[in-house]
């Protein structure tokens, strides 16, 4: 049973999160650094260039890297303070084994032997697929590749998936369907020369702050800005047109915009005829989506929808950017396809200043989804169910194609299989599902049912508290490698310092485990660059072709945009030039999208829409950022954003405590009463664990194609907490903290 053996107080006292405010020895002790290491931020998909300052072999600060072309020195607060994760008191320094009271130390060899032995024993008793691997999109390309190979060859399980399942898969699946390739179509350098930027479901200012300046540079030239979001975000505040869509209604809105575009004669008939398939069905479908027909459902007046279409038609060059706001849905793929339909119908793609991109969210959200750590994928963005792809990869790995397992479960499906006892063992790296998956109560129940769980981590995440064995891995700045940024630019992550204590580079741990599982010769890497060389060779000829990329070339060119098939090839910053798409016939595909409502709609019991997202000072499940003092101070705890009209109905004033309840659970938090959100919608950021987890409320409903959860729509009710009520709930909170979550979560 993988239930923590120590109380939350004890675990937090030993492992944090504690807050770090200063470099080692304090600011006064910081002198001239011994060296400055040019690398990238460890957080989001923008992957800003930064220089880490190293003094006495410790990371002591950060300095902007002004020569790196993407951000030119610009950083968000996370990038400025990210160095404080190093030298952190919570850092895992030794392998740990579950004891009667939390964790005790164990020697490396013993820990690795135990892991291998437990995995093999479970597999002998319950089948090879009774053990699953969860990995992450903050890992370097090298590690992402290694994890896929490790799961398929060393563990031999078909169940490996990654936390990009919660991030990029809807956009990825839609891009693959429409374009035959899954990558931002344009480099960010195209944004400033656009005439109209349309941002959908992307709180750019908080989730990809550097993109803000790209958009403003277009506006400085006279470009217009349209923002589609249920909240008036900082970038929306100054937009030329703001469309506050009801959460979950995006495909209806986009169909209506295309409906008007067609009526206005905005279709690029020549482009559609020469470079696309399937427009006729889209034409027939969107015919019914007149602005008047959808206005009530999408919650925006018809005149505004018409205005958006007019602006789209009038702008010679447009950039359509979207992110999780339209993707975290049971129809995430359809929402993205509806965006792409608009872009393709008007031929506004594949040109300077004119195109389309999803804003990839995670640090290696792009590369992390290409190299085979997804349940349905082999390296080079190959399909695990395609016999030719299987044969290619098996050949390169020196095994028979039959040895490669088939398609496995998605990350949420893995958690469900754990919950029902089908999967009994878990290996995790770079994934904190207890905070990040929907319906946190369910996730906790599942984790408690594991027979064996080994977590590789640098801090003891909320999920890792459930582990039997914890192996101390490496922070981003403690290893070499590459990542692929939101633009599709492959860049170098450089090692600034060695892992502290007994901690080891993640790839060494994985290779050591592979050796103990009998696959040592296939994991005989002596440095990460060797893994990259194998990865790039293996990707050659695939969709995500890194064949012509070397570390040396990345450094020389300040990054290489894939596809880059040969050593002479400079890389491909802009895709689809001349209307050439990546499907075998070179044509893009339209996909007619019929609007359907979200999985959960509001009713009398749960009358308010909950949507979730991020704040600028925190990142994802907060494993790192909840340990950085200045970032925590910016936004210390989640608050629920409520419009004054809804607040008045509830009798709630700003700062008062409320209970937000869904069919899955409830949480208590303070209200932030603001006129910058739709009156029928509330918002809670999701970076916190336990009793403050927004994912106590979210719905385990998934996109049928991509498997992405519907984080952006759940039905809730909100009650003001009165004094008695508060006392009762405090008891519930205590129950949560002592690991009896169901009492608190079910109402």
């Amino acid at each position: 049973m993988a239930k923590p053996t120590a109380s939350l107080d004890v675990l937090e006292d030993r492992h944090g999160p504690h807050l770090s405010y200063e470099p080692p020895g304090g600011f006064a002790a910081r002198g001239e650094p011994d060296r400055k290491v040019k690398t990238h931020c460890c957080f989001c998909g923008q992957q800003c260039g930064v220089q880490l300052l190293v003094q006495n072999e410790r990371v002591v600060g950060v300095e902007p890297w002004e020569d790196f072309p993407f951000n030119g020195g610009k950083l968000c607060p996370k990038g400025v303070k990210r160095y404080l994760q190093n030298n952190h008191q919570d850092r895992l320094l030794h392998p740990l084994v579950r004891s009667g009271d939390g964790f005790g130390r164990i020697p490396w060899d013993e820990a690795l032997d135990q892991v291998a032995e437990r995995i093999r024993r479970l597999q002998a008793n319950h089948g090879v697929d009774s053990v699953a691997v969860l990995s992450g999109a903050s890992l370097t390309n090298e590690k992402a590749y290694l994890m896929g190979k490790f799961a398929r060859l060393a563990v031999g399980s078909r169940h490996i998936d990654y936390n990009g399942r919660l991030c990029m898969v809807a956009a990825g699946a839609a891009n693959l369907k429409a374009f035959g390739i899954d990558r931002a179509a344009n480099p960010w350098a195209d944004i400033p020369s656009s005439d109209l930027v349309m941002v959908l479901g992307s709180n750019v200012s908080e989730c990809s702050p550097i993109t803000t300046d790209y958009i403003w540079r277009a506006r400085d030239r006279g470009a217009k800005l349209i923002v589609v979001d249920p909240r008036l975000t900082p970038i929306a505040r100054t937009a030329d047109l703001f469309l506050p869509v009801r959460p979950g209604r995006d495909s209806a809105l986009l169909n209506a915009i295309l409906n008007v575009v067609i009526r206005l004669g905005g279709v690029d008939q020549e482009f559609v005829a020469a470079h696309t398939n399937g427009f006729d069905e889209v034409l027939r479908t969107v015919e019914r989506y007149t602005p008047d027909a959808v206005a009530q459902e999408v919650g925006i007046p018809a005149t505004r929808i018409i205005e958006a279409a007019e602006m789209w038609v009038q702008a010679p060059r447009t950039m359509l950017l979207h992110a999780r706001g339209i993707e975290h849905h049971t129809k995430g793929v359809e929402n993205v396809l509806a965006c792409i339909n608009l872009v393709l119908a008007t031929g506004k793609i594949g040109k300077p200043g004119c195109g389309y991109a999803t804003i990839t969210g995670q640090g290696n959200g792009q590369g992390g989804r290409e190299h085979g750590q997804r349940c349905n994928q082999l390296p080079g963005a190959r399909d695990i169910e395609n016999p030719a792809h299987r044969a290619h990869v098996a050949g390169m790995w020196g095994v028979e194609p039959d040895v490669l397992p088939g398609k496995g479960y998605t990350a949420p499906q893995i958690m469900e299989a754990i919950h029902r006892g089908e999967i009994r063992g878990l290996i995790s790296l770079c994934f904190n599902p207890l905070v990040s998956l929907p319906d946190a109560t369910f996730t906790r129940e599942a984790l408690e049912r594991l027979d064996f769980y080994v977590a590789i981590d640098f801090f003891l995440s909320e999920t890792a508290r459930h582990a039997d064995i914890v192996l101390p891995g490496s922070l981003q700045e403690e290893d070499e490698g590459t990542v692929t940024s939101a633009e599709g630019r492959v860049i170098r992550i450089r090692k600034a310092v060695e892992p502290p204590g007994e901690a080891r580079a993640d790839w060494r741990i994985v290779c050591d485990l592979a050796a103990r599982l009998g696959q040592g010769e296939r994991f005989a890497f002596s440095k990460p660059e060797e893994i990259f060389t194998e990865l790039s060779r293996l990707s050659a000829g695939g969709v995500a072709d890194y064949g012509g990329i070397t570390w040396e070339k990345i450094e020389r060119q300040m990054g290489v945009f894939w596809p880059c098939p040969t050593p002479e090839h400079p890389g491909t910053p802009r895709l689809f030039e001349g209307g050439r798409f990546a499907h075998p016939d070179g044509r893009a595909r339209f996909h007619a999208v019929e609007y359907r409502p979200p999985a959960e709609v509001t009713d009398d019991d749960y009358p308010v829409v909950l949507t979730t997202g991020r704040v600028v000072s925190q990142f994802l499940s907060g494993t790192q950022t909840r340990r950085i003092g200045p970032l925590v101070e910016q936004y210390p705890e989640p608050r629920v954003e409520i419009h004054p009209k809804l607040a008045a109905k509830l009798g709630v004033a700003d700062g008062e405590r409320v209970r937000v309840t869904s069919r899955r659970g409830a949480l208590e938090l303070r209200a932030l009463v603001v006129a910058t959100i739709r009156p029928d919608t509330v918002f809670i950021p999701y970076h916190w664990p336990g009793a403050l987890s927004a994912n106590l409320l979210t719905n385990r409903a998934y996109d049928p194609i991509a498997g992405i959860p519907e984080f952006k729509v759940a039905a809730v009710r909100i009650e003001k907490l009165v004094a008695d009520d508060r006392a009762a709930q405090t008891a519930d909170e205590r129950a949560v903290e002592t690991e009896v979550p169901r009492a608190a979560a079910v109402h």
Partner: protein
Amino acid sequence: MQQLFIDANRCIGCRACVEACSECPGHGGFSMIHLDEIARATTVQTAPTVCMHCDDPACASVCPADAIKLDPDGVVLSAAAERCIGCGNCALACPFGVPKIDVQRELMMKCDLCYDRTSVGKAPMCATVCPSGALFYGTQEEVEDRRRARPLDRFAFGEHVITTRNAVMVPAPTARFEVDVPHGATRSRAELMLEEALCD
């Protein structure tokens, strides 16, 4: 001349400037920038307050200890530690609300335009990192060439006119800078923006 241009219209409230300022060598983790939420109840408007480096700085004029000096480039410096008596007159006198008293050190600290950086031709830390371009360091020609908004470096407080080294960007052709401050019962621009865009 290289100047700092402050465009609150672009500000996204991320506080990268505040955090970066605290990382400047010599600041000891102390930030000299205020990042203000203007009126969060009705708008997401935020604004960075950075020293304007007045040509005739009120903070220096009212300093009884004569601790605040201008350097030859027109940069108004932090109070000299050996002279400052921590009285707070400067903080009260500044029309832009810039100086802060570090209570522990009993010392006024304020933006010195990142002397370490600007003296070697680099932008101040805040303007280097600002992800929206709300803080921009360059020449007047550069900013006028790149942007539609126009720099303003003259501020009238009644009859008293203050001219500054740094400039605030204002939407052209208006000569007056407006943020989303709601006055009395009127609604903020942001509030109206949302309401007008909603179906009943």
